C-alpha cells in the first residue's frame, strides 16, 4: 500500500488530503477482490495509469478554476492589473531590446567559421595606434610571419556602376585573393577570386553582395558571366556572396580583386591597406603579437628611415570596435537592467500592497478550509498570468524598440546593421519577472494560511504594518535610488551632447548642400579633363537662383578623416609621428567662402594657381603655430605629398575628424589645378558644396540636371546638407541620450508611482489613527506634515545612496562624457531637485486624502 500512497503524490496536496484515504481504501478493497497474481498485476498497472492520467486532469481542473478566479479578480481591480502588466512589459521589453543589440555587437560570434582565429593586423606609428599598412610593409610582413594560416589585404572604395538603370555610386572593396578564403565564407553562387584575378592587367572580375544582386539584378540566377561597367571598366560577374556576408562592414555592394601596380611598391610610407588574417590553430593572439613585434623590429632595422617609428599590432576581429561604442552599449545595458530591476521592485510592491488589502479575504478562505497549497497555488497563478500578459506585451515593446536601438550598432564590424530580437533574453527577462511575481505574490498567501493570522478576521483589524511595511518602503527606496542613478547618468550625457553640439567646428554648416560626384578613373585621369568638368558644373550651379557660392574639394570635413601626410620643412628629416602629420585636401577657389572658414592672412587658392606654376598651399592656424610660431608664414616653403609648396594664406582650424576628442591634425589646402596628372588622383576633388539661401532640397533636381549634362554617365550620391553631416557625428550619441533619457523617465515615473502607492496605502491604513489625532485637535497642517514627512524620508533614503552610485557610474563612463565632470554639480543638483518634486507630487494626493478624513466617520467605521 505504501507504493499506492506514493503514487497518490501525483495529485495536488489538497486533493490528496481530501480523498487520499478513501482512494486508498477503495484500492485496498479491490486488491482484496483480486485473487490470482495476474489479476493483481493488472490491477497495479491500471492503478498506475489511471492515477497519472487523472492527476493531470485534476491539476488542469484546478488551473482552470484558478484562471477563472484570476480573470475575475483582475477584472475587479483593472487599475492594479493594467499597472502591473505595463510595468512588466516595460521592464521585459526594454531589457530584451537593449540586450539584443548588445549581444549582437559585443558578445555573439562573428558570422564566420572559427571566428576566434580571425584577426586584424595594423601598423602603428607614434600617435597612431592603428594605421593601415603600406603595400611594401604588407608584402614583407606577409612573407616573414609564421603565425598565420593566411593573410589578406583589402581597401574600401566606391565605384560608379553604369548600365543598370541610372548610374549609381556603390560602396566596394578591393580584396586580395586571400581575403575571402581567410574569412571562410563560401559564395552563394559562382566562385571567389583566385591569384589569376589579381594579376596586373587581368580581365576585371566582380563578386556581388546578396543585397546588390537582389536590388540591381533582380536576384537573377543567370547573373554569372554578365558584364557590368564599373568606373568605365568592364567587369564580369563571377559570383554572389550570401546575405550574411557583410565584410568589412554592412552596406558594401561588391568586391573586386586588388590588382597591385608596380608603382604601388615604391613608397613605404603610403599606407592604405587593411590587413586581415587567420591564426594557425595552435597560435594564440599573444604569440602572434610577439611575432609581429619581432618582424617589425627587423623591418625597422632594414628601413630605418621610413620605419623609424613603425610597429605592428594584432587584434581579434571581434574587438575591431571603438572603446566608445563598447562603453556606450554597456551603459545602455546597465540602464536597461536598472529598468528591469525597478520594474520587478514595482511589481513586488504592487503585489504586496494588494496582498495587504486582501489579507481579510485570504484569511476567510483559509478559515473556510482552503489549504495553504490552494491559496499559494492561486496566488502563483495570478502572478504568472500577470507576468505572461506583461511578457507578451513586452515582446511588442522589444520588437518596436530594436530598430530604434539599431542606430547604436557601430559600422566597424562585419555584421548586419539591424539585429533581430533575441528571444533567449526575452525568456530570461520573463523568468526573472515570473520569479519576482511568484515570490512576492506567494509570500503573503503563505503567511495568510499560516497559524495565528486569524487576527485579520477580527473586526476592525488593521492590515499591514511591521515587517511587510518595511519591506515595501525598502523596495520604494531602491526604486528611488536606481532612478536617481539613471537620471544623473542621462543628465550627464545630455550635458556632454550639448557641449559637443556647442563645439565650434571651424566652419558654418547652415545653408550648405553637399553632393558627391566621384569621377571614375582612368576616364578622368588627366587633370585638365577634371578641371573642365568642375568649371562647367560650378559655373552653372553658381548661376542657380539663391546660390551664393559653390566649390569642389577632395572631401568635406567630418566626412573623411584621411589624407594624413608627414610634413618636411626645408629639408628636415621626415618623421611620421602624430606631431608631424597634417591632413590635406585639394579645393577649388570658393571653398573657404562656401564653408565660411575664415581667411586670416594672405589669400585663398585661385584659378591662377595652375600646374605649371609654383605649387601653393593655404594652411590652418595650428599649422602655423606648429612650424612658424610668432613668424609671418606667408612665403615659407614646406614639402608634402611629393612636392614643394609655398604658403600663400592662413585660415581658421577645422574639426576634420569630428567634434569629439582632441582637435584634428593641422590642415593644408592645395589648388585643384595642381593635382599632378596620374599622380594622387585618389585625392581628386569629388565633393560639391553649395551655399544658398534656397531650401536645400529644391536645388537637387537642378544640380542633378547640370551634372547629367556635363557627363551623362556620372552618378551623384550622398546628397545631404552640411548640417546633416555634422549631426551625423553626434547621431549615435543623440540616440543614446534619448534611449537613456527614456529609461530614466520610465524609472522616474515608476518610482513616483511607488511613492504614491506606499503613502496612499499607509494613509488608508492609518485612517482611524489620523481620525483620532484630528479629533484630539491636530491641525490639517500637522497631518499634512506627517504624510509629506514620510514621503520625504523615503525620498531622502533613496536619493543619498543614489548620488553616490551615480558618481561611481559617471566615473565608469567618463570616456563618454566629452569632458563634462563626472561630479558635475548642476546635474547632481537638478536630479536631486527633480526627486524632491517627484516626492511632493507623489505624496500630494495621499496627503490631501489624509487631511480630508472626517474624524467622526473614521472612528465610527472602525
Amino acid at each position: 500500500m505504501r507504493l499506492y500512497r506514493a503514487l497518490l503524490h501525483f495529485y495536488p496536496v489538497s486533493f490528496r488530503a481530501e480523498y487520499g484515504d478513501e482512494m486508498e481504501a477503495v484500492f485496498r478493497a479491490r486488491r482484496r477482490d483480486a485473487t490470482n497474481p495476474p489479476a493483481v498485476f493488472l490491477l497495479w498497472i491500471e492503478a498506475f495509469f489511471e492515477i497519472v492520467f487523472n492527476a493531470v486532469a485534476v491539476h488542469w481542473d484546478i488551473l482552470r478554476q484558478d484562471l477563472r478566479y484570476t480573470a475575475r479578480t483582475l477584472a475587479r481591480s483593472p487599475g492594479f492589473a493594467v499597472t502591473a502588466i505595463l510595468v512588466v512589459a516595460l521592464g521585459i521589453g526594454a531589457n530584451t531590446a537593449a540586450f539584443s543589440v548588445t549581444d549582437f555587437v559585443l558578445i555573439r560570434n562573428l558570422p564566420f567559421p572559427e571566428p576566434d582565429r580571425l584577426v586584424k593586423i595594423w601598423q602603428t606609428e607614434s600617435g597612431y595606434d592603428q594605421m593601415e599598412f603600406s603595400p611594401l610593409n604588407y608584402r614583407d610582413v606577409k612573407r616573414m610571419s609564421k603565425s598565420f594560416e593566411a593573410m589578406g589585404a583589402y581597401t574600401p572604395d566606391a565605384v560608379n556602376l553604369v548600365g543598370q538603370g541610372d548610374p549609381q555610386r556603390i560602396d566596394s572593396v578591393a580584396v586580395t585573393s586571400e581575403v575571402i578564403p581567410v574569412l571562410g565564407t563560401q559564395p552563394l553562387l559562382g566562385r571567389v577570386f583566385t591569384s589569376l584575378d589579381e594579376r596586373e592587367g587581368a580581365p576585371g572580375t566582380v563578386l556581388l553582395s546578396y543585397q546588390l544582386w537582389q536590388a540591381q539584378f533582380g536576384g537573377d540566377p543567370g547573373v554569372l558571366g554578365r558584364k557590368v561597367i564599373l568606373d568605365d571598366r568592364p567587369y564580369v560577374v563571377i559570383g554572389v556572396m550570401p546575405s550574411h556576408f557583410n565584410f568589412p562592414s554592412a552596406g558594401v555592394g561588391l568586391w573586386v580583386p586588388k590588382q597591385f601596380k608596380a608603382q604601388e611598391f615604391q613608397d613605404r610610407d603610403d599606407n592604405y591597406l587593411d590587413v586581415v588574417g587567420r591564426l594557425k590553430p595552435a597560435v594564440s593572439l599573444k604569440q602572434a603579437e610577439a611575432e609581429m613585434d619581432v618582424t617589425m623590429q627587423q623591418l625597422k632595422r632594414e628601413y630605418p628611415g621610413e620605419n623609424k617609428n613603425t610597429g605592428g599590432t594584432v587584434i581579434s576581429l571581434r574587438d575591431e570596435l571603438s572603446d566608445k561604442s563598447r562603453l556606450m552599449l554597456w551603459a545602455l545595458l546597465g540602464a536597461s537592467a536598472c529598468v528591469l530591476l525597478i520594474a520587478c521592485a514595482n511589481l513586488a510592491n504592487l503585489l504586496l500592497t494588494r496582498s495587504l488589502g486582501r489579507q481579510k479575504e485570504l484569511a476567510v478562505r483559509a478559515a473556510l478550509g482552503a489549504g495553504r497549497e490552494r491559496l499559494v497555488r492561486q496566488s502563483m497563478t495570478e502572478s504568472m498570468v500577470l507576468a505572461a500578459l506583461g511578457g507578451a506585451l513586452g515582446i511588442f515593446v522589444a520588437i518596436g524598440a530594436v530598430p530604434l536601438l539599431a542606430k547604436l550598432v557601430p559600422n566597424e564590424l562585419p555584421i548586419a546593421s539591424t539585429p533581430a530580437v533575441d528571444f533567449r533574453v526575452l525568456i530570461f527577462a520573463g523568468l526573472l519577472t515570473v520569479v519576482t511575481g511568484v515570490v512576492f505574490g506567494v509570500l503573503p498567501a503563505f503567511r495568510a494560511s499560516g497559524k495565528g493570522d486569524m487576527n485579520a478576521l477580527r473586526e476592525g483589524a488593521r492590515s499591514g504594518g511591521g515587517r511587510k511595511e518595511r519591506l515595501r518602503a525598502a523596495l520604494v527606496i531602491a526604486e528611488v535610488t536606481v532612478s536617481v542613478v539613471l537620471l544623473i547618468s542621462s543628465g550627464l550625457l545630455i550635458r556632454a551632447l550639448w557641449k559637443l553640439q556647442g563645439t565650434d567646428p571651424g566652419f558654418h554648416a547652415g545653408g550648405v548642400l553637399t553632393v558627391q560626384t566621384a569621377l571614375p578613373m582612368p576616364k578622368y585621369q588627366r587633370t585638365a579633363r577634371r578641371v573642365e568638368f568642375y568649371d562647367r558644373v560650378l559655373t552653372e550651379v553658381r548661376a542657380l537662383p539663391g546660390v551664393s557660392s559653390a566649390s569642389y574639394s577632395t572631401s568635406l570635413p567630418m566626412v573623411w578623416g584621411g589624407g594624413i601626410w608627414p610634413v618636411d620643412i626645408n629639408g628636415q628629416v621626415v618623421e611620421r609621428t602624430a606631431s608631424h602629420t597634417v591632413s590635406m585636401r585639394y579645393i577649388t577657389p570658393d571653398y573657404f567662402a562656401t564653408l565660411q572658414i575664415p581667411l586670416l592672412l594672405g589669400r585663398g587658392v585661385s584659378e591662377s594657381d595652375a600646374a605649371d606654376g609654383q605649387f601653393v598651399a593655404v594652411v590652418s592656424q595650428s599649422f602655423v603655430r606648429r612650424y612658424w610660431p610668432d613668424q609671418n608664414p606667408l612665403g615659407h616653403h614646406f614639402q608634402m605629398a611629393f612636392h614643394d609648396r609655398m604658403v600663400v594664406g592662413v585660415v581658421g582650424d577645422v574639426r576634420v575628424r569630428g567634434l569629439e576628442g582632441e582637435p584634428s591634425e593641422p590642415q593644408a589646402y592645395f589648388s585643384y589645378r595642381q593635382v599632378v596628372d596620374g599622380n594622387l588622383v585618389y585625392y581628386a576633388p569629388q565633393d560639391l558644396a553649395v551655399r544658398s539661401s534656397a531650401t536645400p532640397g529644391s536645388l537637387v533636381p537642378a544640380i542633378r540636371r547640370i551634372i547629367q549634362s556635363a557627363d551623362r554617365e556620372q552618378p551623384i550620391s550622398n546628397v545631404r546638407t552640411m548640417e546633416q553631416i555634422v549631426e551625423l557625428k553626434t547621431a549615435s550619441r543623440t540616440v543614446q541620450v534619448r534611449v537613456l533619457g527614456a529609461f530614466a523617465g520610465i524609472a522616474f515615473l515608476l518610482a513616483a508611482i511607488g511613492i504614491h502607492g506606499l503613502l496612499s496605502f499607509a494613509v488608508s491604513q492609518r485612517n482611524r489613527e489620523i481620525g483620532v489625532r484630528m479629533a484630539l485637535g491636530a491641525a490639517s497642517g500637522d497631518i499634512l506634515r506627517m504624510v509629506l514627512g514620510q514621503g520625504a524620508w523615503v525620498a531622502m533614503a533613496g536619493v543619498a545612496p543614489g548620488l553616490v552610485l551615480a558618481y561611481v557610474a559617471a566615473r565608469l563612463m567618463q570616456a563618454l562624457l566629452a569632458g563634462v565632470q563626472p561630479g558635475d554639480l548642476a546635474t547632481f543638483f537638478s536630479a536631486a531637485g527633480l526627486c524632491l518634486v517627484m516626492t511632493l507630487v507623489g505624496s500630494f494626493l495621499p496627503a490631501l486624502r489624509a487631511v480630508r478624513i472626517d474624524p467622526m466617520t473614521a472612528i465610527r467605521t472602525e
Partner: protein
Amino acid sequence: MDKPESLLPLPPATFHILIALADEDRHGYAIIQDVAARTNGELKLSAGTLYRSIPRMLDQGLILETSTRPAPELDDERRRYYRITPFGVAVARAEARRHAQLLKMARVRGLAPEKA
C-alpha cells in the same frame, strides 16, 4: 442554480454515479461496485475517475457529502458518503430523457431494436 439542461450532455462517469446514488447514499467503493454490478462488470469505474468526478459534482451541486453514517459495526471511519441532491435528480432525469430521445430517433431509422 443553473438549469438542469445546462449541464447536458453529462460525462458517462457522472451519469453512472448519479444513477448509483439514486436509490441510496453510498461511499466511493460502493459506487464503483454498484456501477460494475449494473453493467455486468463491463464498466469498472476507477478510483481516479471517481474521485476526479466527485469534487466537480459537489461543486455543481449534483451531490453532497452526508454526515449520516451506517451503524458503527458496518462503518469504516475513512469512508465518505455521498447523497444525490434534488438538483442532481433533475439533471439525471434530463440526461435520461435525452438518451431516450436519441434512442427513439435511432429506432425510427432502424438503428436500434424495437421495444421488447
